[in-house]
């Protein structure tokens, strides 16, 4: 082979095939080295650190050899009623947000891809996607003030329309819906664009055929478009699930877990434990959330792929 001629003469010959391949493509190891280093140092090491520390005593967390306490941290957090409440509200919030975001995105994508909206489409897409790339801190701070009872835009608008005022983030009965709306504003553009990207791949012939057969617009959506969008729905549901299970920034900016712990989501609670130097408990919560993300993502993916959900 001509290729081997270009390999330097130092090539060892008596090695097994895999070792010869390693030698021949050794420069690829050089290429991958910085990437692998980043993965190890800022990925695997911290993950291992957090798993290890969830079994260690907080006071010794910064030592290279911390004291191990077995399952004590997990026992502490699972006997903490505030953590159980945090788990529940996280799951509740996630369920509502996933359904609303994916449903809104699907509806809006159908609207934006309809034949009635030819002009201005670029602007509509830009408007819905702009919040996705906007720094989340800035977006949520603006929402926080818009919900303000005294001079927020939300209540001013409701008041001028003669509608009842909204408690916003100050009232523990309305705070979850306030966060759902602000986060929908922030994230729904992402899911909408994923649906729109997938809709470009649909086969227009199917839709035309159904129309010729006399199918109504609703029937065409339900029996023609929707089944073709199934992979996109699965992707969006899984993305949304991961996104909302780890809801964090909106709480830090707008509510600090309140009022009265009604928005004390797991990632925020874990962060608070970290700030109070309860590293062991913080890491036990982090590991629990990671486990939850993995199990729920896999279960949902499996369910959406296999069952006929319609």
């Amino acid at each position, binding site marked *: 082979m*001509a*290729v081997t*001629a270009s390999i330097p003469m130092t090539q060892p010959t008596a090695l097994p095939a895999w070792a010869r391949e390693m030698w021949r*493509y050794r420069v*690829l*190891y050089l*290429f*991958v080295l*910085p*990437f*692998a280093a*980043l*993965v*190890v140092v*800022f*990925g*695997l090491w*911290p*993950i291992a*650190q957090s798993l290890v*520390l969830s079994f260690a005593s907080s006071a010794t967390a*910064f030592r*290279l050899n911390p004291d191990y306490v077995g399952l004590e941290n997990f026992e502490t957090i699972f006997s903490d009623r505030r953590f159980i409440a945090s788990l529940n509200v996280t799951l509740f919030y996630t369920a509502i947000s996933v359904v609303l975001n994916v449903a809104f995105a699907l509806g*809006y994508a159908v*609207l934006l891809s*309809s034949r*009635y909206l030819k002009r201005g489409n*670029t602007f*509509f897409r*830009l*408007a819905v*996607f*702009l*919040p*996705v*790339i*906007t*720094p*989340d*801190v*800035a*977006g949520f701070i*603006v*929402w926080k003030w818009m919900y303000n009872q005294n*001079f927020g*835009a939300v209540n*001013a608008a409701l008041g001028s329309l003669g509608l009842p005022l909204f408690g916003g983030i100050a009232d523990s009965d309305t705070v979850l819906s306030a966060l759902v709306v602000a986060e929908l504003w922030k994230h729904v553009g992402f899911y909408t*664009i*994923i649906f729109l*990207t997938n809709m470009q791949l649909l086969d227009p012939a199917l839709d035309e055929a159904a129309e010729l057969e006399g199918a109504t617009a609703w029937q065409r959506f339900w029996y023609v478009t929707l089944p073709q969008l199934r992979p996109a729905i699965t*992707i969006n549901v899984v993305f949304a699930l*991961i996104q909302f299970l*780890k809801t964090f*920034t909106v709480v830090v900016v707008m509510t600090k877990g309140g009022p009265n712990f009604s928005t004390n989501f797991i*990632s925020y609670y874990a*962060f608070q434990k970290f700030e109070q130097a309860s590293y062991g408990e*913080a*890491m036990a919560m*982090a590991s629990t*959330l990671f486990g939850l993300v993995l199990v729920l993502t896999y279960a949902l993916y499996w369910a959406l792929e296999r069952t006929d959900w319609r």
Partner: protein
Amino acid sequence: MTARIPYVLAYACAISLSILFVYPYYWMFVGSFRTTEEILTAPLRLLPEVFNLSAYGEITSIGGASLLRLTVNSFWITTASTAIAVVVTALGAYALTRRPKMLGFNLIRYGFLLTIMYPFMLLVIPVFIVMFHLGLLGSYSGIILFLSLGPIQFFLFEQFFRSFPKELIDAALMDGASELGVLFRVVLPVARPVVGTVTLVTFLLNWSQWFPVLVISRTPDTYTLPAALLSMNSELGTNFQGIMALATLTTVPVVIVFVLTQRRVMQGIAAGAIKG
């Protein structure tokens, strides 16, 4: 006449929703020019009474760091982490797709996948401990290096290199090119569009980062604009106008970049995400 009803309905829906999506930006921008008293009397006023620029003067120093410093930090940290991310991820993804079965390559790939599955916010906490051990706490390099690893970047590159015709590489090797020659003369010239997209997307995503910046920093001297905005948010005594001014300054650069490059950014983020 009835044929026009669906058009009217569709446009009415799309226009009103678009206004709702854009309105917070408008309220923020106008709010940065209005005093608290003015907003209290007319929260929804569309134009400021007078263009009161005092808020932009008040935020020249935030929590001990100057606005200039924060802005320079933002641009420096975002640009440096974007550059490192593009080079390191491109080389890594190239090697991993060129010979996926090489010893150890699968391990690196799975390690990366595990990392991006781990909830980002909770990864940052142990990163604090890692930075402590590495002596990088409070340093720019710590922040920049941590921000150089991201899922969308990797998946966009991987997608591109996977679809790259193998025959071209083999032909170049036959002609006696080295692996380095193949990368620089055969692959990279064609990879310009994907490099551009990844650069744009990484810049936009890293500009927004605040949590790693806050956790790795020791003083506000290494804060970026979003990190400073957050610390201003938690301060007692609320300076509404100042917060809106800083939020505007934090948002304007990404809005400009996005509006100029929107199609590419949206396609890039969608493509990189679908792959993952």
